[in-house]
Each structure stands twice: as structure tokens, then as C-alpha cells.
């Protein structure tokens, strides 16, 4: 016997209230990262440890700058989505609430900081 009401069944959102939205968004960011990760990591490995001017010149190049911005934004979104699942799995009650809020704020802050840094390098180097 079904305990769901006809209305909740037709909405198809289940007990999480948001249906498959989180799952789907996480796959989208994962697919984006499959493309962006090699494009970001290889140049980063090359430039890490370079001089101030070398690093600025490298990331002032539009291709590096756009890839870096796209990677930082997508990676921070994906990091939040992943940490959210981990927190929901292992934490409960007030801790869960606190960690979810703190994680979201931190990931947003680091995404903004990264984008600001790359843009400033790109426009001033």
C-alpha cells in the first residue's frame, strides 16, 4: 500500500523536498570539471613556483584567466555540493545545520576571492 498522497506522488519530489535537483546539479558540475581540471591543473603545475612576474603574465593571458575563473567557480560549487552530502551523511541536528551554513559561506567566499584575484591579475599585469 502506498502511503504517499496522490499530490506528493505527482510532484515526485520525495522526502528531501527537492527531488533529484541536487544529484543532477552535482553531475553537471562534475562533467564541467572533467573538461576544466586538466586545463587548469597542468598550467598550474607549470607556473607554481614561478616568479611574481612570470605567474602574473601567465594568468593575464585570456585563455589561462578564463579557464582559471571557470575552474575556481565550478570547483567551489562542486566542493560545496560534495561537502553537503558528506555533512548530511555524518552530522546531525545543530551540528549539521552549522556545518552546512559555514561550508556554504566559506565556499562562496573562496570562489569570490579566486575570481577577484584572477581578474585583478588579468587586468593589471
Amino acid at each position, binding site marked *: 500500500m502506498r502511503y504517499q498522497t496522490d499530490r506528493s506522488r505527482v510532484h515526485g519530489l520525495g522526502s528531501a523536498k527537492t527531488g533529484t535537483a541536487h544529484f543532477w546539479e552535482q553531475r553537471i558540475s562534475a562533467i564541467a570539471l572533467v573538461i576544466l*581540471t586538466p586545463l587548469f591543473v*597542468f598550467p598550474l*603545475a607549470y607556473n607554481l613556483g614561478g616568479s611574481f612576474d612570470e605567474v602574473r603574465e601567465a594568468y593575464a593571458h585570456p585563455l589561462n584567466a578564463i579557464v582559471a575563473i571557470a575552474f575556481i567557480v565550478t*570547483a567551489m560549487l562542486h566542493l560545496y555540493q*560534495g561537502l553537503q552530502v558528506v555533512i548530511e551523511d555524518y552530522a546531525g541536528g545543530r551540528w549539521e545545520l552549522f556545518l552546512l551554513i559555514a561550508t556554504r559561506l566559506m565556499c562562496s567566499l573562496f570562489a569570490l576571492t579566486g575570481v577577484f584575484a584572477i581578474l585583478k591579475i588579468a587586468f593589471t599585469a
Partner: protein
Amino acid sequence: MANVNQGNRPLSPHLQVYRMPLNAVMSITHRATGVGMAVSAMLITWWFLSAATSEEYFATANGFMTSWLGDIIMFFSMLGIWYHFCSGIRHLVWDTGSGLGQRRVKRSGIAALICAAALSLITIIIA
């Protein structure tokens, strides 16, 4: 319930003596590398911010990133991201419903480990 065999019944797998299959270890490692890379992301953002700020600040951040501690963190971050990358592609394939048989899971697990090692080696050569 008088004839119940009390002493010789099979036990369900006990966590401390259960030898975890490769795939279980890989699943946990996927999570661990994902969480761990939060630290890498913060350090790299800091490094970019320093390059956007001033030469002195960059010397500080770059100095840490190229110190022995920074090198160790970046080395493990690099292993972590390539592992998570290869393992993640497996998860994306599984999400389509394919590659889920016992033999294929084992084979793709070993393939992911080899790919992650190869990508790490390329990264080390570039760096």
C-alpha cells in the same frame, strides 16, 4: 527455540576483521580526497590572491607553497585531484547504469588507479 545452535553460527561481516574489497576502499578514498582538497583549494586561492596583491605578499605565499611543507601538501593535492578525477569519471559512467557488473567494476577500478598514476606522472614532469 530449544534446539537453536548457539555457538557455531556464521557472523555477518565484522568491520574490524572484514577485508574490504578494492571498490569499497576506492569509494571511501573518493570522499576523503574530495574533502581533503578543500584545504588545497584554499591554499591555491591564497596563492592567486597574493599574486594579485603585491610582490612582497607573493613572496610569502609562494615561499610557503614551495617550502617542504607546501611541496608535500601540493604533491598530495595533485595525487588527490587525479584520483578524484579518474574515480569521478567512473561514477559518472555508473550513473548512466552501465559498468556495474562485478568484473567490470573491478577492472575499471584498476584502470582508474593506473590513469591517476599516469596523470600524476605527467604533472610531475611538467612541474
